[in-house]
């Protein structure tokens, strides 16, 4: 069987170092909250809607409490207190705040037990719904059989959710297992989640709760016809990480891009804000049974795939530890890597085989997410199609979890319907042709591939040691990751982080922690 010779102690050492990096954030996770975390709580309490000028109710409420300087106590208390005092539902409270009829901070404080009782009922109702969505998914997999491995993952990105559904349904019929709706350009920098169905986007379609619902329905329909459960993916990243995770949990998304550090490095979002938000959003994903994916492929779009291979490994290890901290099981950790090697290099395929096997060896049960060639995709669509075939070959040979299919038009436009069909045909052909080949092959223990994989892991260990010595924030400020300098107090969304008061309450966090058995 195709296997690397890597000493288990070396892998354990790497994991231990990553653990040390991650375990120094209790102060942040237990002492702070952010505006998007509070807006998430509003959503989880069952509040939805937007004002006529498009401001979502969660933003209206959180902004209002902030301007009254009482947000430190947490939005849950204020909404529940008003519900108690005025005998209203959460949605009715929101409706009144939105039209300026109600000031939450001046509602007479009700007896603590009464407020707590309302909070507990709201929490139980929503968590029950999220659990039922998880059960629904598991039942579907039990009926139709488990997802294939590697799963075929394709994107839709027309900008129009209705057009997206049509293309997604076609892709599912052709063999796709997972559909990702790519978000519109720069949604990650919006400090709110747009509302309602959308038909205009650039390079993608806005992530809104209504769009989630529309696509979910479309995929359930086609899935029942073809007797396969079709997974749906979106992006819990940017300034609204936990809100999007919550929307996904409510509408039964199955996979969420949810990286611990991507926003900091590639979107210049404040480091504290990002780590805090990923902590809560990943907990929601863990609770909802949503598989997360991480964005290590991005390191290689700006750096060289050979020289910086170790940064991928190091980031995977850190992402794994942060995910575990939030209660995500390894079977739901789609750690990322990518076939971004320069095709002009001699033996590029051997390098890729080494890197892909290394990921597989370090994270044997994770549904690893393998990204296709993008950077070296060119206007020569014929060559790009061939590179995608080589990528599919590595994916099947090394048993990756999720294969993000490469498009031959990657360098030109977001996929046309035929590009996607050809990509699926390509993957199906290669996967079938080399299905069991990996079981027949062995590697020379002293050969190039083994040496290469060991070298990358050694470099990753040295790098992690450096980060342990300085601390993660300091290392980011210094530019150790991806050569990008990100100081702890700079970046977008920094002002949206606040210290919790002593009587702060996030009932969802507490309840999920308890049920997931997290006691930090």
């Amino acid at each position, binding site marked *: 069987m195709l296997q690397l010779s890597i000493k288990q102690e070396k892998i354990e050492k790497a994991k231990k170092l990553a653990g040390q990096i991650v375990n120094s954030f209790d102060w942040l996770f237990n002492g702070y909250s952010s505006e998007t975390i509070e807006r998430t709580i509003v959503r989880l309490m069952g509040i939805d809607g937007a004002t006529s000028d498009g401001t979502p109710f969660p933003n209206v409420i959180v902004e209002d409490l902030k301007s009254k300087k009482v947000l430190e106590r947490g939005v849950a208390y204020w909404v529940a207190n008003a519900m108690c005092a005025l005998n209203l539902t959460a949605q009715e409270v929101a409706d009144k705040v939105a039209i300026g009829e109600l000031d939450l901070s001046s509602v007479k404080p009700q007896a603590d037990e009464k407020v707590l009782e309302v909070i507990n009922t709201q929490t139980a109702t929503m968590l029950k719904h999220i659990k039922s969505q998880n059960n629904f998914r598991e039942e579907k997999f039990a009926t139709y059989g488990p997802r294939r491995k590697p799963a075929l993952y394709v994107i839709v990105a027309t900008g129009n959710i209705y057009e997206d559904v049509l293309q997604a349904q076609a892709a599912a019929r052709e063999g796709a297992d997972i559909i990702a709706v790519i978000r519109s*350009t720069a949604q990650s920098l919006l400090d709110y989640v747009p509302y309602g169905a959308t038909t205009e986007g650039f390079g993608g379609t806005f992530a809104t709760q209504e769009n989630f619902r529309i696509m979910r329905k479309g995929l359930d329909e086609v899935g029942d016809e073809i007797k396969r459960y079709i997974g749906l993916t979106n992006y819990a990243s940017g300034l609204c990480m936990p809100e999007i995770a919550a929307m996904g949990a409510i509408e039964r998304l199955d996979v969420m891009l949810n990286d611990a550090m991507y926003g900091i490095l590639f979107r210049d979002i404040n480091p504290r804000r990002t780590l805090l938000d990923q902590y809560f959003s990943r907990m929601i994903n863990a609770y909802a049974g949503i598989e997360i994916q991480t964005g290590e492929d991005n390191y290689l779009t700006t750096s060289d795939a050979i020289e910086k291979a170790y940064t991928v490994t190091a980031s995977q290890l850190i992402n794994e530890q942060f995910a575990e901290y939030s209660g995500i099981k390894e079977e739901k950790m789609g750690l990322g890597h990518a076939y971004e090697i320069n095709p002009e290099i001699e033996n590029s395929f051997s390098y890729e085989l080494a890197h892909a096997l290394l990921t597989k060896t370090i994270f044997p049960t994770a549904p690893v997410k393998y990204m296709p060639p993008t950077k070296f995709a060119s206007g020569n669509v014929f060559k790009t199609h061939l590179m995608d075939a080589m990528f599919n070959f590595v994916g099947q040979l090394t048993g990756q979890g999720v294969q993000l299919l490469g498009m031959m038009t990657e360098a030109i436009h977001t996929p046309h319907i035929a590009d996607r069909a050809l990509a699926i045909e390509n993957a199906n052909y290669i996967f079938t042709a080399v299905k069991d080949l990996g079981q027949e092959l062995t590697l020379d223990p002293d050969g190039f591939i083994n040496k290469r994989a060991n070298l990358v892991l050694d470099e990753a260990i040295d790098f992690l040691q450096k980060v342990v010595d300085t601390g993660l924030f300091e290392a980011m400020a210094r530019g150790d990751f991806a050569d990008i300098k990100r100081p702890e107090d700079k970046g977008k969304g920094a002002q949206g982080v606040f210290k919790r008061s002593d009587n702060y309450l996030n009932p969802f966090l507490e309840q999920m922690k308890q049920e997931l058995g997290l006691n930090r």
Partner: protein
Amino acid sequence: MPVKTDPKRIRPYGDTLNDGRVQISFTLPVPCDEQGKEAARQILRKMGMSEIDVCHMNDLTEGFTHFNAYATSNAEVDLTSIKVKIVETPVMDMYENDEYIDQNIGRDLIVVGACIESDAHTVGIDAIMNMKGYNHRYGLERYKHIEAINMGAQVSCEDLLQKARAVNADAILVSQIVTQKNIHIANLTKLIEMAEAEGLRDKMLFICGGPRLNHEIAIELGYDAGFGTGSYSTDVASFISVTIAEKAENN
């Protein structure tokens, strides 16, 4: 030995001169059957094709079919009448360019670059500007006589112009990679209109670049030059130095 042709009568080539053979693939919202195939054939005929061979069709489901075809095109062009706008300044390497600036301009040039508005792709502008450069050509930051300021991605037009004014830039470099729904055209137009309104347009060179841009489009949009796929720091730097030296001479 290159093929002998009549440059006034250029037609597509399959395996015999002027055979007009082309390869086409496209999708139609039609069923994957003989009627659908005939629809594909008729579309090709209306495109001026004959001897049409729809050699493959594939059911994309949901009512779509993808077709591959070979056909003979009756189109013919006169190569001698085709004029394209290209950047015509000679290309110098970094050392030659620094020398050129030293000799012909006598001061350091200031260049401000950014990938503007919602576009977050930095690799292209970095390839032109960053110290380490791209494909064995150093970026502008390494030039002795160019002070290069790379503002990165998602820079608003306002911020870019403000910076250019503040440092009294000789040239502005704008990158646009995302082109869906012609967003790059909208952004580039916005920048140039703002520059005009602020009286900056004629104070510096405006240069744009990206995979869907070229010199021709750039000129049309009111820029001084445009660079597409496969362009290098050396192309841009040479254009800037030569144009500025010539301007100085003319004044």
